[in-house]
């Protein structure tokens, strides 16, 4: 028998090569080393991160996407946009990036959807004339509690946050009002010794150069403005200082010059970089980027390795690639039920394994960058639920080889990544943990186990969906496959019970450790409890032979509703000690999800005689 290289192996290899291609370092779009600029570290939101991340998260916050188009129709990379926002505000102000979804807010700003890009994105220049009106509305809305705000008031506050993010950037690395900030700094440094002497003399009542004193006062005022407005801590601590967190913003660094008579080197380099960007001089720009690299890396902070990885991670976007691959897995698995079952099922398994490895790498990268266990917020919980669910499904596929595990892995992997990507974006997804959550031990034990429980519940639920849909709508569910499905589901429910029970009790113990109450009937705790109870219902109903195959599968499908409610629903209640915040549009999708599950359950309740695969449920 001639042995050739197996097709599934080749398919996996091909996909792996494609994935490897996405991991390369990006090229600059033109002569400017904008990617080098994107790699420079800054301290924002309590964390050292590359400027590229600042650009992307700011864009996501302001306009819900990373793509920017200039009025002339050119596309900008996030780093290019950030450079314009920082150093060329007169241009950045014309880019339509501010997302406004509420027509009343548009009316307040005397705008109509036709003025915007896609009807929802507007430029700062368009908003600027009516900022005073907006301010008035903000004052009013800010006095209300979050639960009492109507959609208009919420949108007003959202727009205020978006504007603050943008303006904070404008003041971060230069004075936006200044025509040539670099020249201004040179002049400041030159006049500083004389001006300080003159000021001292004037204060002592001696004759002094009034003009110099006045000029110095002018600088002081400007730098104080920078200090209060700048959002980035871009200037690293001087090497003599051993506190690695003592980064300062531009205003602080310049005010420090009054004492040292010297402007810090990174400030000058950033000023030179800004001038070069404004005047379109790539050589000076690239020299400044190189100089800053030396300035900022000089401290040898071990965290800089993380910012380098984060930059690569931003560009590779592993979760987008994985989402696409999971679609392929589900499709291959699905088609394998109709044709070429052996080859396609194994192709799907190998592609699925590559996708799963890619999400593993992505999650591992996030863990290394944050120095945290995998789940720290709602976003990362979605990633992790998908990782556990897909992993478990692929394991089932390895054991059962009927392509059902492939379809489940593809569906769960894809849907959870979509949920993660479309979650309401509130800033950096690698945010710092608030005091009570700042415990790697509990994050690693309680949060991880409970999230694994979610993942396993969804695997059981999706298996139930396949059982009912295949059984009622097609003739493809033969008794053997039905038996296999039942056993897979039983395994998944057992796994889910174990992890949700242990996770829930661990959560109680954490609560006892942090506020002395093992169980407080907090919505999030109740949500976890409901999952445990529901899994107990499913298992006892089966052990007691109170349900047949159809009932068992319907219970498993309803587990989807319960898990989704516990995972997202309690966040929408707006009460509780650890809810993540109110989400409007998410509620619509949650209801849609519930409804879809109930429809399938209704199908599953049809008597066996109406199932197209009758034999599977009558046995």
């Amino acid at each position, binding site marked *: 028998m001639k042995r050739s290289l197996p097709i599934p192996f080749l398919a996996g290899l091909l996909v792996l090569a494609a994935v490897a291609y996405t991991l390369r370092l990006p090229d600059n779009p033109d002569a400017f080393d904008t990617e080098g600029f994107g790699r420079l570290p800054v301290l924002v*939101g309590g964390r050292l991160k590359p400027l590229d991340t600042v650009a992307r998260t700011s864009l996501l916050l302001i306009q819900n996407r990373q793509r920017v188009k200039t009025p002339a129709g050119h596309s900008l990379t996030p780093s290019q946009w950030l450079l314009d926002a920082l150093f060329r505000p007169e241009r950045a102000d014309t880019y339509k990036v501010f997302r406004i979804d509420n027509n009343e807010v548009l009316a307040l700003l005397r705008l109509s959807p036709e003025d915007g890009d896609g009807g929802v994105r507007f430029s700062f220049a368009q908003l600027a004339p009516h900022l005073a009106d907006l301010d008035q509305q903000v004052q009013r809305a800010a006095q209300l509690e979050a639960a009492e705000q109507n959609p208009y008031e919420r949108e007003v506050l959202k727009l205020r946050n978006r504007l603050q993010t943008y303006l904070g950037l404008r003041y971060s690395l230069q004075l936006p009002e200044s025509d040539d900030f670099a020249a201004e700094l040179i002049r400041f440094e030159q006049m500083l010794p004389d001006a300080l002497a003159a000021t001292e003399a004037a204060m002592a009542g001696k004759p002094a150069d009034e003009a110099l004193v006045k000029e110095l006062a002018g600088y002081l005022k400007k730098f104080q403005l920078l200090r209060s407005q700048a959002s980035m801590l871009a200037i690293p601590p001087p090497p003599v200082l051993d506190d690695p967190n003592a980064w300062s913003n531009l205003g602080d660094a310049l005010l420090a010059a009054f004492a040292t008579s010297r402007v810090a080197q990174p400030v000058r380099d950033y000023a030179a970089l800004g001038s070069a960007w404004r005047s379109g001089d790539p050589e000076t720009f690239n020299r400044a980027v190189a100089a800053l690299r030396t300035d900022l890396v000089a401290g040898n902070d071990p965290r800089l390795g993380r910012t380098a990885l984060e930059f690569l991670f931003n560009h590779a976007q592993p979760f987008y690639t994985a989402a696409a691959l999971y679609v392929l897995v589900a499709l291959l698995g699905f088609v394998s039920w109709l044709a070429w079952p052996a080859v396609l099922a194994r192709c799907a398994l190998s592609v699925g394994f590559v996708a799963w490895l890619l999400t593993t790498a992505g999650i591992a990268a996030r863990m290394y960058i944050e120095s945290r266990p995998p789940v720290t917020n709602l976003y990362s919980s979605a990633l992790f639920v998908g990782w556990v669910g897909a992993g478990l499904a692929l394991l089932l596929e390895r054991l059962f080889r*009927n392509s059902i595990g492939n379809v489940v892995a593809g569906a769960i992997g894809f849907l959870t990544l979509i949920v993660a990507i479309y979650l309401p974006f509130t800033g950096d997804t690698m945010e710092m943990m608030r005091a009570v959550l700042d415990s790697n031990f509990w994050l690693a034990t309680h949060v991880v186990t409970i999230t694994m429980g979610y993942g396993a519940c969804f695997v059981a639920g999706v298996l139930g969906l396949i059982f009912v849909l295949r059984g009622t709508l097609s003739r493809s569910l033969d008794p053997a*496959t039905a038996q296999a499905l039942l056993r897979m589901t039983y395994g998944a429910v057992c*796994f889910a019970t174990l992890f949700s029970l*242990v996770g829930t009790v661990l959560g109680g113990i954490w609560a006892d450790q942090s506020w*002395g109450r093992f169980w407080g*009937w907090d919505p999030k705790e*109740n949500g976890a409890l409901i999952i445990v*109870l529901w899994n107990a*219902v499913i298992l006892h109903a089966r052990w007691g032979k109170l349900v047949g195959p159809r009932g068992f599968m319907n219970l498993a499908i309803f587990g989807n509703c319960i898990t989704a409610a516990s995972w997202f629903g309690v966040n929408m209640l707006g009460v509780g000690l650890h809810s993540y915040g109110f989400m409007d549009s998410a509620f619509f999708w949650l209801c849609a999800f519930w409804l879809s599950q109930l429809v399938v359950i209704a199908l599953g309740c049809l008597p066996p005689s109406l199932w197209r695969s009758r034999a599977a449920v009558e046995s």
Partner: protein
Amino acid sequence: MRALLRSLVEHLASLRLTIVLLVLAIVLVVIATLDQVHLGIWAVQAKYFRSFVVVQQLPGTGVSIPFFPGGYLVGGLLLINLLCAQFLRFRLSWRNVGLHLTHFGIALLLVGELVTGLLSVESHLTLDTGETRNYAEAAFQRELAITDITDPVFDQVWSVPLSRLERREPIALPGCPLTILPIQFFPNANFFMRRDAPNAPASPATLGFGQQVVVQPAAPTYRPNEENAPTAFVEFRGPDGPVGTMLATLAIAQPQTFTAAGRTYAVALRRTRIYFDFSLSLLEFRHDKYPGTEIPRNFSSRVRLRSSDASEDREVRIFMNNPLRHGGYTFYQSGFKNDDRTTILQVVRNPGWLIPYLACVLSGLGLLYHFALSLFAFIKRDRAAVAGGTVPGSPTSPRPATGGAR
């Protein structure tokens, strides 16, 4: 008779009952969680979980009807169901050890929750920097405290729980010549200065600030950040007849004094105090933030712990997820105020705090054991099936016995 008992136990042990109870528990938790939006977490606990029957007042009427089994009933029946099942069907074999452990753990969890509900007391200890205290203030209980302050060195305190004031019966204080007669009691109230409300009816108070204040009764609040101001008018009677009537309310903290039978008394309606045989002094409170943000990184209190008999005197750091356990009490970092100069510690006395830890270990190990056993059995069967040439799962995707080659 024996047969009847046996049939009752069999019914109580049935899996059907288990499932009904589990579903009832789920529904109870769901409606209680939804009701938290209106009632707040404490009222919900009392109404749904720490009760046998959930009673709902019909909107717009004073009529209350029971409409759902409460937490004690469902939890208690689950416990009975579990115990009966264990009693009837208990067979010790290696196969069942996991299930027994799990169920024992769950029973322990239910018992632990009951113990906590009945015995645990929550209170708060608020300390300014440099301040020393040897008592905490209860989170929910309030008391009317009458202190004999005649002796400058030694105070004698009588404490009256508010439930006694609600009953409006005379209250004698043992060892004290005074008798208290509650005249009016309001669970919550608002206050105005009398000069701002000239037309208000005359105050029953004849002593203290009550004469200048108008009391307006208010509905009790359940919001998490609001506190009820229980308020009472109480008459004091000495051996020679009435001394006077006083307004006492949580809203006005300062004690009011009066003299009767040659002794001076201070009166205050305050949070019930829980005294320790040790004291805590706040040396320093820290509120660290992440650089360049307002995100709190840590709250910590450095306190000095001194026992009353001076056998212990040491410094302790209490911070997030790191409570101090001492003398049966646990002190948790809970909050702060006054520009970070004052710390608020939550103090819990819960004799059953170790039960859930034990329960968690038992039920976790039990499930792990049981499911691992099933998994190994499954894999063994799978191997045997492959060796025998039949494939578990779908016959539509036969797996070649040789493995990877096509």
